[in-house]
C-alpha cells in the first residue's frame, strides 16, 4: 500500500483546466520526481496535496484511507508539508522562532525559549545546518534558509515532504548539500516529492519519475528507465524537431546594432551585439545573468547608462518605452499579467493600446480603426476569444500572450524583443507562439528573445548569445548549438578557461 495516493484529481481556474484527472502514488522513503513543462499542472497538483487549494473532484488517500485536505493545517496534521519555491520565512525572527512559528513550546502561556532553542537544534542537526538557533534568518544564505524550511517541515513530523523547484536559487555547492540532506531523509523513511525543471538533478536523485503534460499523466519512469531522452519525450510528447517550426532564415541588413551597452544592473560590463532583419536570436543564460536587464535598457524601461543603440542604422537612445516604440522597437515583457496585458480590459482595448497614438484623430479615439485592428489581430494571432469585448482576464495564458503579441504587431515594429515568451503557457499554445515568431521573422522583423528553457533556445534560434553575470560570454551559430555549449558559456566556464 502506498503512503500517499491521489486519484484522478481535477482542478479548474477561470479560463484554464489545470488538472484533468491526474493520479499519483508516493511510496514510503522514496524520492519521487514530478516533472513537466511550465503549465503542465505540477504546481497545482502539489498545492492540492499540501492543502493550499482543494481539488474539484478526485480523492486523496493516506495509508489507504481517504483524507480531506481542506487547508494547510489539515495537510500538516496528515504529515504532508510543502516547501515553496519562494521561501516563506519571517526573516526578522531567529531560526528557532521560524521553525516553531505558530507552534511555539509554551510554559504557563509564555514562550519557553530554552526548550524552543533546544528542540530547534535537534532539527537543525537533522538537516545538517550548523548555525545557532538564535541566528536571525535574514543573515543566512538562501541555501541555509531553505534548510531552515526543511527543518521546520520536519518539526511538524512530516512524512511527505514536497519540494517545489528547491534548487532554483541555490549555488552548485548549496544544491549538492541539499541533495545530501534529501538522501539522508530518505534513509530515515521520509518520502520526498521533488519538482524540478532540471533533468540532470532528477537523474541524480529520483527513485521514480512521474511526468505531467497539459494537466494529465503522460507516463512514469522507474529508476532504471530514467534518462534525459525518455523524460523529454514524455514531457513534450512529440519529436522535438517537429515541435519547433524552425526554418533557416535569409537574414537581411542589420536591424539592431548594440554597441557597448551598460545597464544599471551591471554598470561595469559592456554588451555589444547585432540582430539582422528576419533573424531570430536567442539570449541565453542563467537567472540573474542580466538578460532581462539588457532588454529593459534597450526598450527604455530602465535607460542604459552608456553605449550606443542603432535601429536600421539610425542612432537612438530610448529614455522611455514611448521613445523606444517610436524608434521601431517592441517588447513582450517577462511578466505577462503585470506588464503585458491590462487584465480587466477587453481584448480590443488591449490590442489597440500601443497604436492609439498613431491612429488618433486630433486626440480622439479612432473607434472604427480600433475595431478593425482588433479583428485583424485576433485573426492573425489566432486568438481564441468569444469576441473582442471579452475581458483578457478570462483568456488562457497562451491567448493572453497572443494579445500582447497582437498589440505589438499592430505597430509593425522593426525589432521585437520577447522575454520568456512561453512562460506558464500550455504546450499547444507554445507551439503557436513559435509559429508566430517564425512568421514574423519571415516578414523581416528582427527578433531577440530571452528564454530559460534550453530546448526553446536550441529549437528556435538562428544564433544564440549567451550571458553570464552581466557579460556576453559567447555567441553560437545554429550549427554550433548544443545544450553543453550553451551551458558552458552560461556558467562562465569559457571565460575562466581563457582568463
Amino acid at each position, binding site marked *: 500500500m502506498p503512503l500517499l495516493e491521489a486519484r484522478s484529481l481535477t482542478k479548474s481556474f477561470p479560463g*484554464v483546466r489545470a488538472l484533468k484527472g491526474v493520479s499519483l502514488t508516493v511510496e514510503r522513503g522514496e524520492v519521487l520526481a514530478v516533472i513537466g513543462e511550465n503549465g503542465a499542472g505540477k504546481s497545482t497538483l502539489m498545492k492540492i496535496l499540501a492543502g493550499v487549494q482543494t481539488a474539484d473532484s478526485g480523492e486523496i488517500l493516506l495509508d489507504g484511507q481517504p483524507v480531506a485536505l481542506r487547508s494547510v493545517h489539515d495537510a500538516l496534521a496528515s504529515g504532508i508539508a510543502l516547501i515553496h519555491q519562494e521561501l516563506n520565512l519571517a526573516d526578522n525572527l531567529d531560526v528557532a522562532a521560524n521553525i516553531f512559528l505558530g507552534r511555539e513550546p509554551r510554559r504557563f502561556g509564555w514562550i519557553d525559549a530554552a526548550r524552543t532553542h533546544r528542540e530547534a537544534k535537534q532539527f537543525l542537526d537533522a538537516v545538517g545546518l550548523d548555525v545557532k538557533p538564535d541566528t536571525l534568518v535574514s543573515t543566512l544564505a538562501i541555501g541555509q534558509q531553505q534548510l531552515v524550511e526543511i527543518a521546520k517541515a520536519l518539526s511538524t513530523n512530516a512524512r511527505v515532504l514536497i519540494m517545489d523547484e528547491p534548487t532554483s536559487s541555490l549555488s552548485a555547492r548549496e544544491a549538492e548539500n541539499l541533495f545530501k540532506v534529501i538522501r539522508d531523509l530518505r534513509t530515515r523513511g521520509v518520502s520526498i516529492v521533488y519538482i524540478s525543471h532540471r533533468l540532470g538533478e532528477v537523474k541524480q536523485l529520483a527513485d521514480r519519475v512521474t511526468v505531467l503534460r497539459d494537466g494529465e499523466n503522460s507516463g512514469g519512469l522507474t529508476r532504471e528507465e530514467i534518462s534525459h531522452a525518455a523524460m523529454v519525450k514524455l514531457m513534450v510528447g512529440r519529436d522535438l524537431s517537429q515541435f519547433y517550426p524552425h526554418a533557416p532564415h535569409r537574414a537581411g541588413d542589420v536591424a539592431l546594432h548594440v554597441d557597448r551597452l551598460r545597464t544599471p544592473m551591471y554598470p561595469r560590463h559592456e554588451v555589444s551585439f547585432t540582430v539582422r532583419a528576419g533573424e531570430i536570436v536567442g539570449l541565453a543564460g542563467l537567472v540573474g545573468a542580466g538578460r532581462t536587464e539588457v532588454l529593459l535598457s534597450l526598450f527604455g*524601461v530602465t535607460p542604459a547608462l552608456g553605449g550606443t543603440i542603432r535601429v536600421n542604422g539610425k542612432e537612438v537612445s530610448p529614455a*522611455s518605452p514611448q521613445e523606444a516604440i517610436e524608434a521601431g522597437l517592441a*517588447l513582450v515583457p517577462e511578466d505577462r499579467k503585470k506588464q*503585458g496585458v491590462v487584465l480587466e480590459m477587453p481584448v480590443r482595448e488591449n490590442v489597440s*493600446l500601443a497604436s492609439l497614438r498613431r491612429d488618433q484623430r486630433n486626440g480622439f479615439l479612432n473607434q472604427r480603426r480600433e475595431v478593425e485592428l482588433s479583428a485583424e489581430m485576433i485573426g492573425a494571432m489566432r486568438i481564441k476569444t468569444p469576441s473582442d469585448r471579452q475581458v483578457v482576464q*478570462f483568456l488562457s495564458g497562451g491567448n493572453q500572450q497572443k494579445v500582447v503579441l497582437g498589440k505589438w504587431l499592430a505597430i509593425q515594429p522593426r525589432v521585437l524583443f520577447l522575454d520568456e515568451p512561453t512562460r506558464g503557457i500550455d504546450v499547444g499554445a507554445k507551439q503557436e507562439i513559435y509559429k508566430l515568431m517564425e512568421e514574423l521573422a519571415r516578414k523581416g522583423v528582427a527578433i531577440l528573445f530571452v528564454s530559460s528553457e534550453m530546448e526553446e533556445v536550441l529549437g528556435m534560434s538562428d544564433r544564440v548569445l549567451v550571458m553570464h553575470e552581466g557579460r556576453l560570454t559567447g555567441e553560437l551559430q545554429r550549427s554550433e548549438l548544443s545544450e553543453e555549449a550553451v551551458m558552458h558559456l552560461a556558467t562562465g566556464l569559457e571565460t575562466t578557461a581563457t582568463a
Partner: protein
Amino acid sequence: MKKLLGIFGLLLAVCLFATWASESFRSGYNIENLIRRTALFGVIGIGVAFVIVTGGIDLSIGSVICLVGCGLPWLLTVQKWSLPAALLAVTVVSVGIGLMHGLLITKLRLQPFIVTLCGLMLYRGITRGFTGDQTVGFGDGYKGLRVLATGKISIPFVQGFEIPAPWVVLVIVAVLAAIFLNRTIYGRYLLALGRNEDAARYSGINTMAMTILAYVICSTLAGLGGVLFVLDVNSAQPVDFGNFYELYAIAAAVLGGCSLRGGEGSIVGVIIGTALILVLRNVVTLVTNHSNIEFAIIGTVILAGVIADELVKRYAVKRRAARALAEESSRP
C-alpha cells in the same frame, strides 16, 4: 450600465420616499436648492473621479475650496484687486496645487494619501493665516458674477420652478469630462494606467504625465467649485468653509461607479451619486429633524452600496469564468 441603473433606481426610491414622507421636500424651493447643490458638488465630484480612475485619491479638495473660496472675496474686497486679476490668481493657484500634487506623487513617488492629506492641512491653514481667520464675503457687490451661482433660468410654460444657473456649469463640465474620458486617447490612457500602470507604461504611455494631468484636473475643478460655492453663499469662514467636501466628492464618485482600485469611472454616475448623497442629507434633516445623525446615515448607505457592488461583481466573475470554461471544454 447596470450599475448606473442600480444607483439611479436607488436615487428614485429615496426621492419617492421623501416626497411621501415630507411635505417640505416636494416644495419647489427645496427641489431647486437640491439641484443647485447637486451641481456645485457634482463639479468637485467629477474632478476627484479623474484621480480615482488613476487609482489615486485627493483629500485636499475641501481645503482647496476653502483657499479659493475665501481667497477670491479676500482679493476683491480686502486687497481691492480687479476681477480678472483675482480670477486669474485663483486659477493659477488651483492648477499649481494639482501640478505640485502630481509631481510629488509621480516624480518623488510619494503616496497620494499623504501628499493630499498634507495639502488638506496646509491650504486651510494658509487661508486662515492670510485672512486672519475673519469671515470674508462679497457684501452687496459683484451681483453680476454671483448670478453664475445664484441665478435661475426659467423654463417656458413651467411656473414655480426654474433651473439653477450652476446646473449649466455642471452640464458643460460633465460633457467635456465625459468626452475626454471616453472618446479621447488620453481618457483611455487614464483608464489603462489605473488598472495596470506597468502594462500602460510598457505600451508606450507616458504614465507620469497622465497621472499629473489627473491631479491638475481635480484641483482645477475643486478651485472652480470653491468659486461657485462662495458665490452661492456670499460669505465664507476660513475655519470651516468646504470642510469635509472631499469626502462628499469621493463618496459620490464611489457610489457612481468609480472603483478606488482604479481604472473604472463614469461621469454620469458621479452626478447621480452626488444627487443621491445630497437627497439623503436633505431627507435626514427634513424627516427625522435630527441633522446630527446625517453622517451616520450617509456612511451606512455608501457602505451598503459598495458591499452590494462587490457581491454582484463576484457573482459576475464566477458566472463568466464558468462560461469561459464551458466554452473551452466544448472546443475540440
